[in-house]
């Protein structure tokens, strides 16, 4: 895929609009998926995704081919998505970190695994949780949403995440851990699984920088 992308980029740089359009069509949904995870709102995600491609087109001349074209588009989409969230937050003057108020009880480890079973095939519960996933994602803070989305949709490694977000590996792991913990607490609640104690204190405070 990468080599073909490069061929299309070369043609696009030479002014071939159809080649650039082919690149857009190839990656539009995945870029949208990343944007959606970060900004939550589908229409905003659509705009962010389009903005990312527009920006790519404008800077085509600078693309050296050192990283994959797709990495480049995702990188731009990530930054635009984060910017968009922060703009919204300033505008609405809301504290977006609702999940900090959520009671994240300790305990409940392993409950989801037991309920889902070890069989990777689709169970009704797995489908139900998947459908609740974007809703749950929308409730956790932006920095946790972003790192989870980059890990799971774009598939970035710890090293790539560190580079993309400008943090060190330890922080990557810690932030992912907290993000997952919050998601799991929300999913347990959706699944109606015992283990949540509303109103109790937040977790152990494993101190993330």
């Amino acid at each position, binding site marked *: 895929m990468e080599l073909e992308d490069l061929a299309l980029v070369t043609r696009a740089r030479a002014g071939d609009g159809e080649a650039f359009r082919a690149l857009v069509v190839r990656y539009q*949904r*995945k870029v949208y998926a990343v944007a959606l995870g970060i900004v939550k709102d589908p229409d905003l995600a659509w705009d962010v995704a389009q903005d990312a491609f527009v920006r790519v087109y404008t800077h085509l001349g600078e693309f050296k081919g050192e990283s994959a074209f797709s990495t480049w588009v995702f990188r731009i989409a990530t930054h635009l998505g984060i910017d968009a969230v922060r703009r919204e937050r300033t505008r609405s003057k809301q504290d977006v970190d609702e999940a900090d108020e959520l009671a994240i009880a300790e305990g409940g480890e392993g409950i989801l695994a037991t309920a889902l079973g*070890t069989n*990777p*095939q689709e169970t009704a519960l797995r489908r139900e949780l998947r459908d609740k996933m974007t809703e749950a994602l929308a409730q956790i803070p932006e920095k946790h949403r972003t790192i989870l989305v980059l890990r799971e949709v774009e*598939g970035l490694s710890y090293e790539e995440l560190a580079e993309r977000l400008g943090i060190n590996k330890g922080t990557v792991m810690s932030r992912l851990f907290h993000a997952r913990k919050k998601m799991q607490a929300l999913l347990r609640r959706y699944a109606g699984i015992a283990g949540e104690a509303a109103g109790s204190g937040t977790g152990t405070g494993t101190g993330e920088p």
Partner: protein
Amino acid sequence: MTGRLAKAAVLTAAVLSALPAEAAPGVPVRVRVIRGSRQGPPALDPQLQDLQAQLGHTAYLRWEQVGEHRADMDFNKPLDVPLPSGDRLQILILESRKETVTFEVRVPAQKTQSKLTISKDKRIVHQVTPEKDGSAYFVTIRPWP
């Protein structure tokens, strides 16, 4: 004690292994046999709603589903799909990666063979009979339906 250590060993191995989750015993695939025709008023079988965009690129205006197969496919083990025309075709999975699946579609009656790599969220629409009396058969192939 032995049991607990054995369990921990399995989990440790799982952490250290390269494969994401258990290696899938089979890739779930949904195959539908559909017929497109030029004759008659334009109509799309409600079951084929999800294919509207792809089918819209053809000149056929009427579409109906005539068959469906679901299977968990192992690598290189062909799925045999009979067609109403009496022909049969074979579908195989050559490769399944994190993001993509590679299918091979063999249509012996048309001396045609396709190797198609698609990302997991997409589907293949493949004509499998030439047009006759204004209609033709297609198959759609979707991994992880």
